[in-house]
């Protein structure tokens, strides 16, 4: 077995803390005081790190385990906090969760910036975690796209969502770089966005400053009490020293990999995403649109980066960046904003979203003693991270029911229809 040494893999600020001549030092750091409750968070993406930070702030003893924190879906994600403009038929529960979490983001970002020692305002372009609250503009080009946009507007109005229907010229007054062929748009002024890579880095720093241990190892299995799969979870097995971590509770926040550790219906949904760089920002808010039925979004960062995303592919654990994926993204992005072709390509990456059958995450007790789930966030991990931690802290009992792992499957309604037919 590979010897565990934080020095080898130190990309984060925990290096200093865990730095030591032997693994024994790490063991001492991660063992809780006798009698104290200790919880292990499996997964150091935005969800796992957020949970660790919030639990630690609430006075709980936690340890995060991840071989490479912040490098999975969090690293790929565009960071749209856009529950309003992303609403679709059949997904009202997800809308409720998203709106609640969006409301938590400004204070969440401010507290995080303070805890991480980022001595900058949290809400300002290019500073802090680059939280921006300028809204999302959803634009349409062809007549079909416009008709779809109007149908969406009607659905949003029925849900009481605050959106504004704009003409093509009004859209271009807001965003002059939009193609002249834009026919109309919907402005969701309350939507926001954030840079997930900055959030992950800030969370790692905040955890380090709080003295929360981070074990850079892969969890190979959950430690169970007694024989077989059903026993209470009492820790995790690791692929390297210290070999295992015993804990009073385990929070599974392993994203697309969650199903490899527990009986949970989570599958990887591949997303390819491009980061372009421009000296001058092309856009001042998130722009998304349908181009002849295909769907694309552009997210501007404070540092001149422009994120173009994202494909949705059911290809298992495949993270290859493909010619077809990039072609489709750039083809559609150019229809929206012709100027994108002048930009430098800074980064192309594919990440794996953790998808669930109903697109709603599993947050809460798993049904197995000692195991809590915080996974399956699919396209909403960044948006839903603050709410996820709040639910685990018992702050949102009503919303917790919507994403409880024990929620009923929607099959019941179908059977009722069957009887009718």
């Amino acid at each position, binding site marked *: 077995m590979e010897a565990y040494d934080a020095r080898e893999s130190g990309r984060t600020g925990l290096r200093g803390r865990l730095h030591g001549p032997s693994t024994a030092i790490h063991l001492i750091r991660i063992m809780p005081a006798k009698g104290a409750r200790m919880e292990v968070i499996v997964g150091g993406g935005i969800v796992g790190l957020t949970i660790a930070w919030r639990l630690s702030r609430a006075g709980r003893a936690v340890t995060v385990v991840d071989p490479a924190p912040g490098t999975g879906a969090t690293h790929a994600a565009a960071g749209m906090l856009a529950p309003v403009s992303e609403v679709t038929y059949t997904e009202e529960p997800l809308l409720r969760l998203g709106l609640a979490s969006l409301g938590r983001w400004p204070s969440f970002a401010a507290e995080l910036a303070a805890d991480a020692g980022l001595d900058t305002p949290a809400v300002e372009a290019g500073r802090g975690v680059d939280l921006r609250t300028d809204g999302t503009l959803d634009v349409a080009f062809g007549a079909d796209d416009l008709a779809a946009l109007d149908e969406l507007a009607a659905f949003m109005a029925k849900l009481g969502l605050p959106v504004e229907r704009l003409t093509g010229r009004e859209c271009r007054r807001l965003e002059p770089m939009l193609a002249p062929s834009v026919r109309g748009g919907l402005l969701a002024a309350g939507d926001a966005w954030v840079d997930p890579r900055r959030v992950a880095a800030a969370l790692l720093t905040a955890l380090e400053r709080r003295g929360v241990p981070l074990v850079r190892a892969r969890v190979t299995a959950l430690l169970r009490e007694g024989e077989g799969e059903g026993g209470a979870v009492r820790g995790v097995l690791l692929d390297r020293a210290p070999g295992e971590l015993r804990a009073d509770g385990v929070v599974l926040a392993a994203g697309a990999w969650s199903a490899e550790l527990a009986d949970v219906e989570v599958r990887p949904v591949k997303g390819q995403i491009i980061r372009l760089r421009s000296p001058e920002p092309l856009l001042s808010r998130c722009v998304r649109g349908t181009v002849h039925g295909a769907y694309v979004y552009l997210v501007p960062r404070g540092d001149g980066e422009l994120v173009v995303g994202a494909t949705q592919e059911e290809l298992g654990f495949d993270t290859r960046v493909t010619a077809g994926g990039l072609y489709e993204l750039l083809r559609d992005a150019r229809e929206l904003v012709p100027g994108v072709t002048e930009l430098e390509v800074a980064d192309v990456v594919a990440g794996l979203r953790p998808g669930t059958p109903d697109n709603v995450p599993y947050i809460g007790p798993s049904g197995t003693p000692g195991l809590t789930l915080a996974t399956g966030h699919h396209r909403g991990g960044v948006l839903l991270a603050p709410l996820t931690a709040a639910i685990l802290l018992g702050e949102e009992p009503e919303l917790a029911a919507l994403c409880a792992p024990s929620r009923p499957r929607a099959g019941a*309604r*179908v059977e009722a*229809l069957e009887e009718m037919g």
Partner: protein
Amino acid sequence: MDDLIIAGEKFTSRLIMGTGGAPSLEVLDQALVASGTELTTVAMRRLDPAARGSVLDVLRRRDIKVLPNTAGCFTAGDAVLTARLAREALGTDWVKLEVISDERTLLPDPIETFDAAERLVADGFVVLPYIGDDPALARRLEQAGCAAVMPLGAPIGSGLGIRNPHNIELIVEAASVPVILDAGIGTASDAALAMELGCDAVLLATAVTRAQRPDLMATAMRGAVQAGRLARLAGRIPRRRYAEASSPMTP
């Protein structure tokens, strides 16, 4: 109701479903169950047949036969390759052959489709080609050994219904393999019309998956296909210019 038979295989349901466009797998699952379908088509590109929890798992769990399709292919070569990969991965000889000519209309390319159909039939596939509403091409594909023909009602995802019912009737008249109306269905009456025109089955996806309530629309489609089939079997009355009293005027 009478069974649908394609390449010797029997189906009770005459509604074939597609899987594209559903907001979530759970919504798709509900819609498939509500539709009563026994045969469902899946795009083989952008899908890993070995991955857990995919749409294929949903179909297997519901005991629905998988019909792999070659959606996204622009050449006969791409389509043949995709069909072979699907056969290897899924262990089925069946393929819904789809070779499109351009991204805007997604209309099928007749020449590439015929070329691919010939090669796939020769390779032992059960080929169900997606074609325009062209009676001549339908006949040529049947002669080439296709197990069914699948003319469109209107472009994929358009929901425009059956734009040329006359051509669909001509295809039905001449065909001795099943005719499956594929693409363009917008609502239940379109599906019923397809069956009244004599189609043996209807394939649809978007009309259900993008409806506000996919499960309800699937139930509606199931009923429409049954109603249309029954009406076809019953035989419609001739259209008349003037009224004809349904109860006798004289004793």
